[in-house]
């Protein structure tokens, strides 16, 4: 048999630093110096990015050993960097590009609920001087508040990564609906939630946006990253699922709801859809229960939308593929078994719009 070449038969010396003719020669470096360069680069880089590293370490799961270990390095590193002023250039750069608060580690309690019972009557909700809220308990069906092309329903969409695709599909869905406007698109922040305001302070963000956008209604989606320990305002840590965790998370959810509805706005709160991993789904069901009960405590002002029936199979089981409205089989869930693909997002967006139509008369 003829073999033209054995790929391992050649023996050559070290890779040449100069490969192309005419290229200015590069000075080769001993491997030990390579390790020295990398070590210096990492030390200098760490001192210059100490603020960001501390934020990253701090953002890890409160219960995790990884966080404890990371903070063992990040805290003294930050102190040294701060002492040497090497943390300043990062601040200057971030200020220059308008992201000066990126590395801030917030220590906030967030708003607490003002609603304490489930029987509180819904206050009148108005926007722009016009009634937009759902009706009081009726004896005869009253007319729904009207929105049209001249007086549009202003919507603010926000949330964690779960909000992204349904939010975008909602935008696509209402592009042709003249009675709805979504001034700022989808306000999303991946890896965020209500459990870690020190990483991203959602209540502050939402209330700030609500002030500037002046929406009639706020559509919120949270929870994908919230099955982790929380810290209550008294500084105590509570592991996920513990009574302390439930009380604190409930306080945050209820507080956010009340902070929005107290400004005469409504909230549509989307639950977490069933996920592939049963253990994780058990966590999310606990979170969904809190959303459900807190929304139930604010009838007519907060509407909980259970997304599981929308993207689950006939028996409520997890499904990756479902038929769309035209009967075509589509992949509705992402590879991670948590998020939704566009067809799934579309189904959720349609459910949100349908719920809005049940509350308001959306014309055009």
């Amino acid at each position: 048999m003829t073999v033209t070449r054995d790929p391992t038969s050649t023996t050559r010396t070290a890779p040449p630093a100069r490969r192309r003719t005419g290229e200015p020669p590069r000075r080769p470096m001993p491997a030990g110096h390579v390790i020295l360069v990398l070590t210096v680069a990492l030390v200098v880089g760490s001192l210059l990015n100490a603020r960001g590293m501390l934020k990253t370490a701090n953002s890890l799961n409160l219960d995790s050993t990884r966080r404890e270990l990371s903070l063992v390095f990040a805290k003294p590193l930050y102190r040294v960097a701060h002492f040497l002023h090497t943390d300043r250039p990062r601040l200057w750069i971030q200020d220059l590009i308008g992201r000066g608060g990126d590395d801030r580690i917030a220590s906030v309690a967030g708003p607490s609920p003002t609603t304490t019972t489930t029987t509180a009557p819904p206050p009148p909700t108005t926007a722009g001087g016009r009634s937009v809220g759902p009706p009081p308990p009726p004896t005869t069906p009253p007319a729904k508040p009207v929105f049209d092309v001249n007086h549009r329903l202003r919507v603010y969409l926000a949330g964690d990564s779960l909000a992204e695709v349904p939010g975008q599909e909602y935008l696509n869905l209402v592009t042709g609906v003249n009675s709805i406007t979504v001034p700022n698109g989808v306000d999303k922040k991946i890896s965020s939630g209500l459990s870690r305001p020190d990483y991203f302070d959602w209540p502050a963000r939402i209330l700030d946006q609500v002030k500037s956008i002046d929406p009639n209604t706020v559509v919120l989606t949270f929870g994908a990253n919230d099955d982790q320990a929380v810290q209550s305002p008294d500084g105590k840590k509570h592991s996920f699922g513990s009574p302390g965790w439930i009380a604190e998370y409930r306080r945050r959810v209820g507080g956010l709801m009340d902070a929005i509805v107290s400004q005469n706005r409504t909230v549509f709160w989307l639950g977490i859809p069933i996920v592939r991993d049963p253990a994780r789904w058990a966590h999310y069901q606990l979170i969904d229960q809190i959303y459900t009960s807190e929304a139930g405590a604010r009838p007519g002002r907060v509407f909980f939308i259970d997304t599981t029936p929308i993207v689950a199979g006939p028996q409520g089981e997890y499904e990756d593929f479902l038929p769309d409205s035209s009967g075509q089989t589509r992949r509705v869930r992402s590879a991670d078994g948590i998020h939704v693909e566009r067809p799934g997002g579309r189904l959720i967006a349609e459910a949100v719009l349908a719920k809005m139509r049940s509350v308001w008369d959306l014309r055009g």
Partner: protein
Amino acid sequence: MLFPTVTFAIFFMIVLPVSWLLMPKPARWKLFMVAASYYFYGYWNWRFILLLVVSTLGNQVFARLIHRSDDDRLRRIFLGAAVAMNLGVLGYFKYYDFFVSSAQNMLRDVGISVAPDLVAVTLPVGISFFTFQALSYVIDVYRRNFEPVRLLDFAVYLSFFPHLVAGPIVRAAEFLPQLRERHDPRRVDAGRAFFLIAGGLFKKVVIANFLATSIVDNVFASPGRHSGYETLMAVYAYAVQIYADFSGYTDIAIGLALLLGFRFPQNFDAPYTARSLQDFWRRWHMTLSRWLRDYLYIPLGGNRRGRLLTYRNLMLTMVLGGLWHGAAWTFVVWGAIHGGVLAFEHWRHEERIARGLPEPDDTLMRRVADRFITFNIVCLAWVFFRADSFSNAGAVLSRVLFHWGGGAALVTPWVLLAIAVGIASQYVPTRAIATAMSEFSRLSPVIQGVVLGFGLLFINALGPRGVAPFIYFRF
């Protein structure tokens, strides 16, 4: 494990010194490198290590069977079995749900209702890349370009972590000889390596991620909300994003390999300066282009069987190249656009020769026009590459063509600057970059480290928090 993470930095800072320490003892070095690479790969999902092991063992068995056989018929059978095994594994993980759901929907359209088992197969990271590398090894053994190597050598080749998950697609003939070289630890091409790694990180973390989050994702998600100008800028931004993302990754991979003493082939060469689609494919994902040329286009007959068959071969190669990228009909259209334009260019060239017409004058205007047209054809194809459906692609194109009114809030000066930098950087003369690398390599190690440390500051401070996965990880 993603390159731009602290986890990877720690991993590499352990692997690098151990690798150089073990280099004088090749057997130990190979075992260590396979273990390190498997750890790197298994960091995503340890189960996929089994897939890598099966691919390594399976391809090695077939390579040996092909090599040992003198019977051409038997050799062809073994080759066919190896190709079937590789494409079967790739097909299952990458295309099973796509083809089954497509068939189900087509049958439903003609009134036949079936309920096949759709299993939502999880795509192992990098499967397309290591499958193509394994195929190149088996096919080259079949072609008698070289003999099979020892199992451990092949395992190092297939799993070597710098190229494992997103290329470049390194041929066996390029990598395996380097395993026998005496790597001189006193002569590491570190100047080039550091330059490539820092540049790659900047391209990925700053340029690509910024453009994705600032304009591209929003416009492609809801094109109906954006003006034609904003949408066109989003398409251009995507062209820069995907270049920065993918070439950034391969730059880092090439740089890491250099630090370990290995040379990888170049994968990008200023693709948006191309003056034709043929030129573009000599500059974009060059290792894939070469693979498709040598293992698909030429075996199909290349351009040796007449015009029509050449056009067919070009179209087939590019459509299959499109499908390699992903299981969606939009990728097929992306390939068809490239194949169609390549065929047209080929036809035009042949016509010119047949009519005895001279090549047009190479004027500045002509160069500018060629580049502008080529870039825009590439961008047209990118729309289908980025869109998640035909309706999405149609909506984007419709906005660009027919809806020029309205604002352009997403087209900020920073976005325009990032697009401009992404395109203009490709016109920087190679000589200037080489000179910069040369000058950098002459600095003392401590100064180099300090410069790189400041590089990390800019990359980390300008990049968004968190690391978005590389686009080509999903291919």
